[in-house]
């Protein structure tokens, strides 16, 4: 590759990606613009029908009604005033009227006239100055038409468009830098040419749209929140630029030998990005908005502040974040301890040589893990029922009193722990069994020759050789238990009054029972941060232990 060609390629990349951005932005504007115009028409129709229903005539918008020909009149209003933001003028079009004389300086086309006669709510027409929307028919002779000035396009979605556009173009640029030379000289011009054609087509389309529908771009841009535009543009550019800088800095010479590997990993990476990263980013975005009024409103860090300071509730009340965090940590620690203890004990038992029916025992002991959690949880919930549950019946038989399991925190917690232990020990048992079977038998022989007791051989042979297998299993198990939604939600349902709720079930309630989506999203992000902190901690500890062992 000559120096000149390289320079040209380096120049083409940014230019093409910029054109792609513009094209994408224009396409999206067209799309959104049309949608907004349509929505405006519907909103207008609704405002007008409210006015026509005869119940809002005392509103400040409607200034005068004149009775004419029995039922109809001319309603004049102030545009932009609540609750009729779109109502400008309401006219009644009689069948006999010639549409060309409908307004002094404009004509309305025939197809629209026909649509209005049918009284369809979506019948709209545009002229240079005005936007006409038909509403319901007054009677067979007359249709009400709302007249309003040409509406500007709502550019509220501009930031999304810019974000995506710049992200996309940045990725194109980055890919070009990365693989441009590797793919050979022809890929760039062909792909670039196609992108250019698309960009030109959408630019043309946008211009036609702007002219035909009279979108007033400058005013509309003013209406968009400037903070949002800046934030989205920056974040859209940031990711690909960071990646591009990093990789171009790394790659000084020949193309990477790992290209084949990247190609194989590619599809899985795409899946991971689409199914994990994008929803995560979406959730992260949600956490900064407040949805209580039904429309997203910017809330900034308010949700995080509310969660972490938890001022509304004292530490002993279940809705306090730290209370729930404490319960979750206790829940995780207790469960993992029980799982490991019971699992390891059973694995040691099963590992004895010459154990009859070992296969049968193993199969039976895996059953708790195999049965779907949902079913198990409901069965256990039934067993802990106050009146008819198996546990209380058993207690009565022994002569003890029935216990109302879900009315106190500790009994409810105990019920949850029992269920989860029953569900969770097979996993640890299987891991421990696998690890035990990999320990060579001659170690034990040597130990017994040296006179070591059972406990000593366990402590000095078995346990150190188990740790590499149990370590990751414990980390996985604790993360699973930390997020064990099924058991808590189905067995105790957070009884009493949310005390046994763990962080995930609490987040679920905020989202779907109280419908505070922004708050719940922030809650999930906090849970994520807690778990990330925990993983980092275990890595540090695990790494240190490994260094110690070696």
């Amino acid at each position, binding site marked *: 590759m000559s120096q000149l060609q390289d320079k040209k390629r380096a120049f083409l990349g940014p230019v093409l990606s910029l054109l792609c951005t513009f094209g994408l932005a224009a396409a999206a504007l067209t799309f959104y613009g049309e949608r907004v115009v349509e929505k405006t028409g519907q909103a207008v129709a609704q405002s007008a029908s409210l006015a026509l229903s005869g119940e809002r005539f005392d509103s400040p918008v409607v200034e005068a009604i004149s009775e004419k020909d029995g039922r109809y009149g001319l309603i004049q209003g102030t545009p932009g005033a609540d609750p009729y933001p779109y109502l400008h003028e309401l006219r009644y079009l009689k069948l006999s009227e010639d549409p060309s004389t409908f307004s002094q300086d404009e004509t309305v086309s025939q197809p629209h006239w026909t649509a209005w006669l049918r009284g*369809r709510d979506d019948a709209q027409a545009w002229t240079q100055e005005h936007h006409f929307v038909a509403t319901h028919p007054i009677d067979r002779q007359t249709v009400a038409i709302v007249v309003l000035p040409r509406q500007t396009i709502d550019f509220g979605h501009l930031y999304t468009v810019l974000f995506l556009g710049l992200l996309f173009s940045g990725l194109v640029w980055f890919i070009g830098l990365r693989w441009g030379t590797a793919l050979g000289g022809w890929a760039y011009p062909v792909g670039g040419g196609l992108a250019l054609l698309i960009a030109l087509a959408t630019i043309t389309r946008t211009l036609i749209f702007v002219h035909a529908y009279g979108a007033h771009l400058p005013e509309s841009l003013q209406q968009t929140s400037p903070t949002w535009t800046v934030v989205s543009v920056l974040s859209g550019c940031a990711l690909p630029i960071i990646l591009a800088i990093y990789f171009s800095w790394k790659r000084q010479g020949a193309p990477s030998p790992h290209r084949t590997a990247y190609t194989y990993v590619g599809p899985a990476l795409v899946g991971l990005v689409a199914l994990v990263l994008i929803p995560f980013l979406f959730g992260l975005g949600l956490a900064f908005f407040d949805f209580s009024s039904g429309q997203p409103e910017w809330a900034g860090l308010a949700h995080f502040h509310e969660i972490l300071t938890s001022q509304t509730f004292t530490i002993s009340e279940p809705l306090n974040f730290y209370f729930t965090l404490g319960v979750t940590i206790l829940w995780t620690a207790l469960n993992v301890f029980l799982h490991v203890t019971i699992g390891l004990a059973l694995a040691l038992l099963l590992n004895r040589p010459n154990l009859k029916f070992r296969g049968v025992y193993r199969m039976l002991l895996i059953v708790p893990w195999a049965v779907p959690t949902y079913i198990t949880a409901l069965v256990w919930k039934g067993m802990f029922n106050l009146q008819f549950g198996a546990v209380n019946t058993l207690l009565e038989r022994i002569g003890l009193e029935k216990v109302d399991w879900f009315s106190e925190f500790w009994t409810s917690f105990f019920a949850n722990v029992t269920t989860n232990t029953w569900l969770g020990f097979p996993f640890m048992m299987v891991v421990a069994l696998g690890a035990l079977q990999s320990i060579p038998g001659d170690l034990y022989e040597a130990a017994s020759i040296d006179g070591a007791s059972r406990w000593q051989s366990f402590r000095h042979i078995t346990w150190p050789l188990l740790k590499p297998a149990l370590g990751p299993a414990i980390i996985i198990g604790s993360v699973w238990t930390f997020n064990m939604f099924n058991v808590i939600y189905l067995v105790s349902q957070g009884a009493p009054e949310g005390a046994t709720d763990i962080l995930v079930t609490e987040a679920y309630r905020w989202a779907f029972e109280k419908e505070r989506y922004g708050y719940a999203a922030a809650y999930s992000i906090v849970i994520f941060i807690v778990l990330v902190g925990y993983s980092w901690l275990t890595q540090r500890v695990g790494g240190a232990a490994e260094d110690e062992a070696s």
Partner: protein
Amino acid sequence: MMRFLLCLVVTLCHLGCGKSSQGEESADKTVVVMWHAYRGDEAAALESVIERYNKQAADHQVRLVSLPYDAMTNKLRVAIPRGNGPDLFIYAHDKVGGWAKRGLIEPVGYWARPETLDRFLPQTLSGLVYDEGLYGLPLAYKTLTLFYDRSLVTTPPKTTDELIKMSESVRSSASDRWGLAYPAQDFYYHSLWLHGFGGQVLPRKGAPQVRSAPMKNSIRFAHSLYEKDLIPKGVDAAQIATLFKAHKVAFVIDGPWFREHLVDHDSWAVAALPKVSETGQTARPFLGVEAVMISGHSREKSAAFAVADFLTSDDSAMTRWSTARQLVANRQVYDRPQVAKDEFTQAFLRQLSNTESMPNRPAMDQLWGPLLDALSKSVVRGMDVEESLELAERAVGQVVD
């Protein structure tokens, strides 16, 4: 390769932009889409009424789509603004406020003349009014009333003192018999005592009244029923029905859905809820109205109203009663001989005059959870009433309307 794929993606995105949605139209008749969550008898009744409508409609046809009840609100909220929603749908009235605010439903005042509205029981209309607009036509109503077992109790109680006395005597007659059974921690049921004590949890305008004196008094009253050991603890709706069928409980407070449990029962009877002795006011339960509402984004609103009008006509109401025993909102139906003889239906009609319409303000949604917690603490487990209500008030937080 990658770049080519990316360009392809861009092309496809662009192609998708040109589409504009049109209303559904077959060659001759327009289709009006209707969503509902009915099952069994109610679905059969609806289908037969719509079939009659389709036969006599000149230029449009109704297409019924049945949805799961739990998914309805979510689907409506998402689909309607995008233009994928129905033209009209059937749902309970408690979400009217939120939907009206967001323009998801259309006020019917434009088409509905006073003669149209005259056919309905007046109590069923008030739940559909929000901000001075009427947002649907009522189909049927649901409320709570008192069921009792004639083999255990001869006459129904007129006051709560009588209720307590009768329950005590039933309870003491056998150890496995109970006086009264109803889900005490569910605010939907507890509200009847609250209204009997003169309280209201959410007025038409203004903040919720969680810590009012009537609320505290009603909680103390309900708890006293537990203290006197008249109510079995920890039973759910299914277990209450089982107890009633086994003649193990004298009084049950429940709604029209309880009918299916009375099929084999030979000594059931229905009565109006008693007066609260402390105040002299009748215990008034929440009234829920099932209505047909028109989508705010529909393109066939006039046709949709014609369907709604037909669906709520007296003849259709009679079909709905006779096929599914729906408690219809049409006045005239109750005078017809078949209906006049049905004790179950007439009992609910009598209870109707002593009900409170369930608030349709969006703020109501925020109250259920905290009140459930407060009631299960204070009514069932006897914890401090003031504390429980104070926590509930904090949990409700700021109401957004």
